[in-house]
């Protein structure tokens, strides 16, 4: 019980710190994340810039904060879209059954046939470096998790006597979703949302790192690491900082999600 509390507290602290950096960082830090100054390249930390500068003389702290804003909003947006789509379709499939259920199930099977990253990679070829293929691809890969959870739980709950009793009393679908389905779904949906959030933050950094996601000069943790990798010897802190933030975000979200939902 208490170890679960400790895990949640650590998770909340990690996520809270990154979210604060994402919201307040770009405001409080005056430096422009894009302004180059080649004479100030690879300055060490704790000088004019708290975390030093990169190989083009840009403030690493400013770039980290802007990248945090990008990652956090990207992760939240794709996980939220996936959650809305998956939950909605899952509820409709379970409530309506029949052809609706079969079509939604086939859509789900088709999406799951391919590992999510492959789908994102093909979509990324449509518009290299653009934001929308990543968002679309990751949200598409994630919605099936929500759909499958919601459909399975809702299906079994709808067979339960409590739902039969509610129907005998004349209650409609909305009441049944609100009283009999959502209370059973919300904890697992919350965990799944946190997992999906973490997975999409990790995915966008991974894709940017291997050169098929967001491209420089956009500040993004993954492509910051690509850019700084050749300078690991001169600028280890600058290279470690984005990795550390990425790690804190994903770990924090996984700890918040609690035990494995799979």
């Amino acid at each position, binding site marked *: 019980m208490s170890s679960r509390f400790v895990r949640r507290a650590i998770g909340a602290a990690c996520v809270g710190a990154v979210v604060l950096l994402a919201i307040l960082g770009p405001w409080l830090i005056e430096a422009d994340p894009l302004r180059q100054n080649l004479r100030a390249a690879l300055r060490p930390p704790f000088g004019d810039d708290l975390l030093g500068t990169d190989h083009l003389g840009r403030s690493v702290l400013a770039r980290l904060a802007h990248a945090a804003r990008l990652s956090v909003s990207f992760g939240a947006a794709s996980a939220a879209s996936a959650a809305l789509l998956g939950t909605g379709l899952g509820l409709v499939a379970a409530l309506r059954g029949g052809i609706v259920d079969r079509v939604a199930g086939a859509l789900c099977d088709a999406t799951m046939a391919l590992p999510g990253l492959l789908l994102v990679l093909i979509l990324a070829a449509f518009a290299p470096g653009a934001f929308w293929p990543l968002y679309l691809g990751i949200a598409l890969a994630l919605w099936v998790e929500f759909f499958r959870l919601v459909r399975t739980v809702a299906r079994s709950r709808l067979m*339960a*006597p*409590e739902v*039969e*009793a*509610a129907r*005998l*009393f*004349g*209650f409609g679908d909305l*009441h049944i979703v609100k*009283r*009999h389905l959502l*209370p*059973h779904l919300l904890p697992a949906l919350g965990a799944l949302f946190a997992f999906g959030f973490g997975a999409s933050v990790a995915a966008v950094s991974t894709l940017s790192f291997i050169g098929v996601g967001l491209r420089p000069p956009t500040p993004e943790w993954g492509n910051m690491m690509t850019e700084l990798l050749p300078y690991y010897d001169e600028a280890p802190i600058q290279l470690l900082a984005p990795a550390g933030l990425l790690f804190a975000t994903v770990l924090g979200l996984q700890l918040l999600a609690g035990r494995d939902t799979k």
Partner: protein
Amino acid sequence: MNAAPALEVEGLCVAAGGRDLVRNACLSLRAGGILVILGESGSGKSLLAHAVMGTLPAELDWRGRIAIGGIDFGALDPKSRRAHWGRAIALLPQEPWASLDPLMRAEDQIAEVHALVGRRTWREARALAGRALGTLGLGSAGGRYPFQLSGGMAQRVAVAVALAGGARLLVADEPTKGLDAECRDEVAELLLSQARAGAALIVITHDIAFARKLGGEMAVMLDAEIVEQGAIAGLLAAPRHAYTKRLLAADPAGWAPAKPVAAANPVVEAANLAVERGGRRLFEGLSVAVCPGEIVAATGCSGCGKTSLGNVLLGLLAPQSGIVRRVSGADAHRFQKLYQDPVSAFASGSPLGVALDDVCRRHGLPLDAPSRILARLRIHPDLLLRRPDQVSGGELQRVALARVLLVDPAFLFADEPTSRLDPIIQQEVMDLLREVVAERRLAMLLVTHDAALAAGMTAKAVRVDARLDAGGTLAAL
């Protein structure tokens, strides 16, 4: 070995955090004898059995003397006690189908005990396992996996497994739990045959009829204490303790038979029904009519379609053929149902009061509408602040009845509403139902597996498992 009693327990106490769960229990059982420990849920009877076995959860404290076949078993450290498991004392677990290894064939689960505990060669062990299965009438089932066995078959395999190590004392923890009522006699016969073969038995149960079948000695438990002990036949014929008397009075077998009700225009009637579930025909040619103020009992073995009959009358299930006619002018929501497991009939996340408020709002009733009904059913309003899993089964079934009465029902389908309740609570709920039916002129279909209970509630019954029965009186059965 036969000289020493199979089991002697003196001054056994089990406690959790200073609270007594079993208080000062004394028991004695001769070799080959049967001892039934009877009590309702929470009385401590299962803990007593686990204390004897040495399988109490680590967080419980216990003290007292336990001797098995002359060995001072209780004085041993846990490791030495474990060395006697299977060899001197064995446990038949609750719901044995969940206790067999799901990945191992039935015969192998018996044979491995002969081989690894009895130190025989695997060839001998397999032969012994095959013979044990044959004796239990399971000769062909040795190659099956547990999920391919029925509950009764798994029970028999588990008995063979438990006794394969040569134990002379078998502790059976609620052996009828989760089994169909008609399996009860089979289980009793199975246990009796083990006793005839020389095993001493301790049987934990809440079921008086089952205890009566077993015979032997009985100890009645109430609130952590053994309140009465003696030979079963004598004890049931002349109980001394007040609790035992109430328990026996609550047994439907002793209820006064119900009187017939004058016939009236039926609220719902069905003619020539045939129903199938999963491609299997449950019954056909069945006709039934339920009039205001009348209880009709639907009886029969489990799986025969009693519940399906009720669901057809409610309109939840379409019959394959036949006609269902409801009285004209009654809204759909005036046909209601009481469930076997009341916990499952309420939204688990909300307090009970919310469930009643929802119904009031849905049907435009004032929010104080439940108060009179609650008072009539003797439900304390504080109960409504709790969630369904926080009240007892009997209280919850009364709240379920209150919710049903809110919508002024014309017909009520009560689906085994007391089969999960202790006997005394069962009697209270049944009395209440009888009163409500009379006061409200309610038509009720009561599904039950218990013929005695049916006879105590009504004179009119349909037997669903007689495929072509057209309804009749209990006396004719």
